[in-house]
């Protein structure tokens, strides 16, 4: 085996094989798993839990890119062969990095944001270790090709990520202005007025709807704090995923020891809430809460972010969102970006 084959082609070949295996695992779906939290975080199978969860810092390709893992082989090379950690300050940094990594892997595996913590250290260090490998093996004349290949690799991975994002967001965010930069610079007062007007609106049409409700009517807020930020309304903060609501006395459970009928009575009479702000996706985090929504909560407004305002009814019924979703999809197909579906639109 020639020197070049050993130092370039073999590592590339092994890297490509490894990437193919890892991507194969990433796209596997276990349809028997129903926990939407695990599916959303892509840790629904033991292998995916290991790769995207505990070792997510290196292998959570979708979110953290597909190059972080390079720090493992090239880091080992730098440590063992090049004695990179030869001074106390480098050893101190290495130890801190390892301890932080272990903590994040063990305790933050479920959250991509936590996994991201050390990435701005890991990826540049991986590039640095690759550069040391290149230098040590007299491959400097190939450095542009090697780095370009790595760049291409991460760009392809990111392009796939953006496709995911576009699918997820749909028509959610579209600029309402086609005016270019030059126009904005040459028309400063018009631009400033637009900025001021933009500030008064929010990202959520549902907020405009909430603002239009009578001031004293309270809302049960299912983990959507935007109500508190964009309106002066009073609400009870709740998260059905943990069945926890919050008052001045702290946390309490809403559904425990209460039937669906008793829940309605408690929400209306004790908490004083006439409306529920939630999403269909959030409701599904609790089977019982979802059943309560279907039994007592009549949808009265839905926006393009799929935020739904429900009116909490006194009598039991069978309230479903289907007509709202149909109307929403129809408007999306028409290319409308800021969508407000009201009761009148579906009746």
């Amino acid at each position: 085996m020639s020197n070049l084959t050993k130092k370039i082609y073999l590592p590339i070949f092994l890297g490509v094989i490894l990437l193919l295996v890892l991507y194969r695992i990433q796209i596997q779906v276990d349809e028997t798993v129903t926990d939407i939290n695990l599916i959303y975080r892509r840790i629904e199978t033991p292998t995916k839990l290991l790769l995207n969860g505990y070792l997510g810092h290196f292998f959570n390709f979708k979110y953290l890119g597909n190059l972080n893992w390079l720090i493992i082989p090239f880091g080992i090379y730098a440590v063992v062969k090049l004695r990179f950690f030869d001074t106390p300050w480098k050893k101190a940094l290495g130890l801190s990095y390892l301890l932080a990594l272990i903590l994040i892997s063990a305790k933050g595996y479920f959250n991509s944001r936590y996994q991201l913590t050390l990435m701005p250290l890991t990826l540049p260090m991986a590039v640095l270790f690759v550069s040391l490998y290149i230098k040590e093996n007299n491959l400097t004349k190939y450095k542009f090709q090697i780095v370009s290949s790595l760049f291409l690799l991460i760009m392809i991975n990111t392009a796939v990520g953006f496709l995911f994002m576009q699918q997820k967001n749909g028509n959610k965010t579209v600029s309402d202005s086609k005016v270019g930069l030059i126009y904005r610079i040459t028309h400063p007062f018009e631009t400033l007025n637009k900025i001021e007007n933009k500030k008064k609106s929010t990202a959520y049409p549902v907020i405009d709807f909430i603002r239009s409700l009578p001031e004293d009517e309270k809302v049960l807020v299912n983990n959507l704090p935007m109500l508190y930020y964009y309106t002066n309304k009073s609400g009870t903060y709740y998260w059905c995923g943990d069945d926890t609501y919050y008052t001045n006395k702290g946390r309490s459970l809403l559904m425990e020891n209460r039937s669906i009928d008793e829940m309605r009575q408690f929400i209306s009479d004790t908490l004083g809430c006439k409306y529920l702000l939630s999403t269909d996706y959030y409701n599904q985090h609790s089977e019982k809460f979802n059943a309560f929504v279907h039994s007592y909560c009549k949808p009265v407004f839905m926006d393009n972010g799929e935020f739904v305002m429900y009116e909490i009814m006194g009598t039991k019924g069978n309230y479903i969102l289907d007509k709202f979703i149909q109307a929403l999809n129809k408007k999306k197909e028409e290319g409308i970006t800021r969508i407000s579906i009201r009761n009148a639109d579906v009746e």
Partner: protein
Amino acid sequence: MISAFFVFILLGALTYVYFSFSLNALLLKLDTHHIIEKPLALIFALALAPFISSLFLHYLLWLFPSQNAITYVIIIILAFTLILLWAKNKIGAVLQYISGKFNFSVQNNNDAQLFIENKFFKIYTNERILILSNITLWSIVFIASYYWMKQIIGTPISGHDMLEYAIQAKHFAREKLIAYIPNRYHAENNFFYVGLHGFSFPLIGTWEYLFSEIFGIYDNDYLLRSVTGYYGILILVLIYHFIKKYSRFYALSAITMLFSSYGFYLMVTDYHIDTYRIFMILAAFAGLGLAIKHPSNITLILFGVFAAAQAYIHSLGVFIAIFLSLSFFIFYPAKFSKKAVRSLVLFFIIMLFGGVHYVMDVFLGTGWIFQEIKYY
């Protein structure tokens, strides 16, 4: 009536420029042995300005609550002005360094050399290419700034966590009070703050609300929006600064790859606390390296301040501060007694620059992590 955006420009200039300038002068004054390189001192000063503002505000709202908005604003501006006056003999040095950065001539721009360092470009090496590369680099800066401003202006705050921070910021500003109480409940609208982390990030928003209140504006959040992009850019600059010591080519490659990754891109473009806390973690790592490599008071202070900052911003940082301190203790090149004394000093710095928040929260407040933690 003064526009909210104009107030933001004023506040941005004050926080990002004037306060950073004061801190840069301070760093140069404290650095009697010239350990901290000037570009690094500038990066650190730019990063510390919003953080120190939030820290001042924390102490003021905690120890001297219920004052007028203008009182808090004047005290903070005065504090940075006093810092600047104390370090006034370094004002010239800071100005000289910054004005050097705005010298666009090819000879004075080392970064332009990057484009001819690689063999691929060598055949094109001539003065025109150098000028072109110079223009390209400044264009990148211009485009990045344009998109940063576009994001701040055009994208309202959204997302669960960001909204939580922003609401808490608003409540601090309205109540003009930080109290350590078991339940962070606000009777005004029944809002209950479920966050576990230190208040640095929301307090940047509070700083903006208080400043805007002077002008009769009560819902300004441009500065809070700007934090994400600001620290995102600083992360790239900090990484570039360190890796360029090995090679400018790999430094540029590293930050390009980092920015090209989906997660980092989202982190910079989606309002959140992440760029703020992650920059401080990187700076704390840099501080640890400096404190061990060049033992001195200034490096110890810098390390302590950044270790405290990343802890005060986010709970995860508390554990990272412990790991960094442990590594410092193990690898600090001195006898045990001196190590112990330096570590004790480090502990006090960390406490002073934000760590005390968690002590208060554990014993008088919500209990911090010593309660049943809910994930959202």
